[in-house]
């Protein structure tokens, strides 16, 4: 392994890491929004729409991201929707992540005991106020562990983006290996950069979980 090669490649990987991070963060934000909306639709058993949500969740969770990306990237232009690779990447991640987030939030919502809801009602709270002040705060803290696991999972899934020619970390590494045969240095940098992105997230996750355990509910 040659240090000078690593130093020379560093700016390329930095740029790729920023793209990975940017697409990952935007995709995950959309996934959280989709997940929260889907979870609420299922929790409140909204007629008809909740069946559509169930179909979406099964479709999203039981197909690989790579194939979802191909559908979005090659399929959408066929039906006349022009788009670019970055938007496709974000859309793919949101489509996949939405269902995982929905399941995480749903388990949190279902873990809130009925008596909490009834107590809120008996204090005169409307269903809206009950959701906002009583159900959601409790549901979100119980769904924190699966939520953090999903964030890490989705960030890792961004490595598939190289398949639709997004110049992310994976793409950059493969590109450099193909061009210069510097396999060791490229793969080393690839691993290091993924760790730089994911380790802080992972540590943040365990910190939040620990905090939540201290603030643990129960009687």
């Amino acid at each position, binding site marked *: 392994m040659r240090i000078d090669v690593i130093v020379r490649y560093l700016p390329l990987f930095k740029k790729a890491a920023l793209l990975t991070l940017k697409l990952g963060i935007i995709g995950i934000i959309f996934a959280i929004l989709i997940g929260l909306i889907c979870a609420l639709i299922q929790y409140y058993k909204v007629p008809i729409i909740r069946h559509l949500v169930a179909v979406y969740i099964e479709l999203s969770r039981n197909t690989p991201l790579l194939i979802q990306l191909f559908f979005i990237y090659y399929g959408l232009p066929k039906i006349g929707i022009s788009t670019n690779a970055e938007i496709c990447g974000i859309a793919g991640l949101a489509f996949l992540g939405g269902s995982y987030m929905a399941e995480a939030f749903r388990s949190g919502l279902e873990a809130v005991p009925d008596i909490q809801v009834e*107590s*809120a*009602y*008996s*204090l*005169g709270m409307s269903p809206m106020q009950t959701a906002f002040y009583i159900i959601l705060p*409790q549901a979100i803290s119980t769904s924190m562990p699966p939520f953090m696991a999903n964030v890490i999972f989705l960030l890792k899934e961004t490595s598939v983006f190289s398949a639709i020619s997004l110049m992310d970390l994976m793409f950059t590494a493969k590109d450099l290996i193909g061009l210069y045969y510097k396999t060791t240095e490229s793969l080393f940098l690839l691993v290091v950069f993924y760790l730089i992105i994911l380790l802080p997230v992972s540590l943040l996750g365990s910190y939040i979980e620990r905090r939540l355990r201290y603030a643990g*509910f129960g009687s």
Partner: protein
Amino acid sequence: MKDILLKVDNIIKRFDNNTVLNGISFDVHKGEVIVVVGPSGCGKSTLLRCINALEPIQGGSITLEGETINPADKNLTALRQKVGMVFQSYDLFPHLSVLRNITIAPEKVQKRNPKEVEKEALALLERVGLRDRANSFPRELSGGQKQRVAIVRALCMNPDLLLFDEVTAALDPEMVREVLDVMLNLAASGRTMIIVTHEMQFAKAIADRVIFLDAGQIVEEGDPISFFEHPQTDRAQKFLNTFEFESVKNHEK
């Protein structure tokens, strides 16, 4: 006779084909303390839940100061503000401090001034001996303390009627007393209450009127002295006997 606050008129409550309340009627006057007793599964808790519109009824009517309580009503939250309820299980909101548990509904539902609500909440906590726990979280309290906070939470809405659903049933014996004392104080201050309980001594001490419920019907109703000392029906007699114990010491020899 004082004004009628709550009128329960011939209500029917069914879960599928199982009739839980079968034609219950009674009036509650202002300032009156009603104790509802009866064997498990007789419909006591369901009765309270119907009065607070947590359960729809299949027949009859419940009116609070002339307004019908109907779970399908849009105006439900307004009615529920007039009826406070304390449940058997500790039902404080675990993510909120003791003080916030008490102030959130008066602030958000009744839109009262937060400063004023906080002052009232602290005064009420003082009265139940928990002023120093205002900033604790529910998990840091004992069962009895939690139940006292739950009572304060209901009180802070200034309800016309308070419902207590076996509030001491899940408590350790020495904690039962502190909760019952709070309720005795409330009765002494003229609160209108309906209490479901298995504490017969307490029922005798606090009740203006006892209602004995069995199999979804009112079997006997009357003042506590005549009910506990001279029950009129065999069913009530049999029920009250389950609280008496014959000594078995002489068998040991």
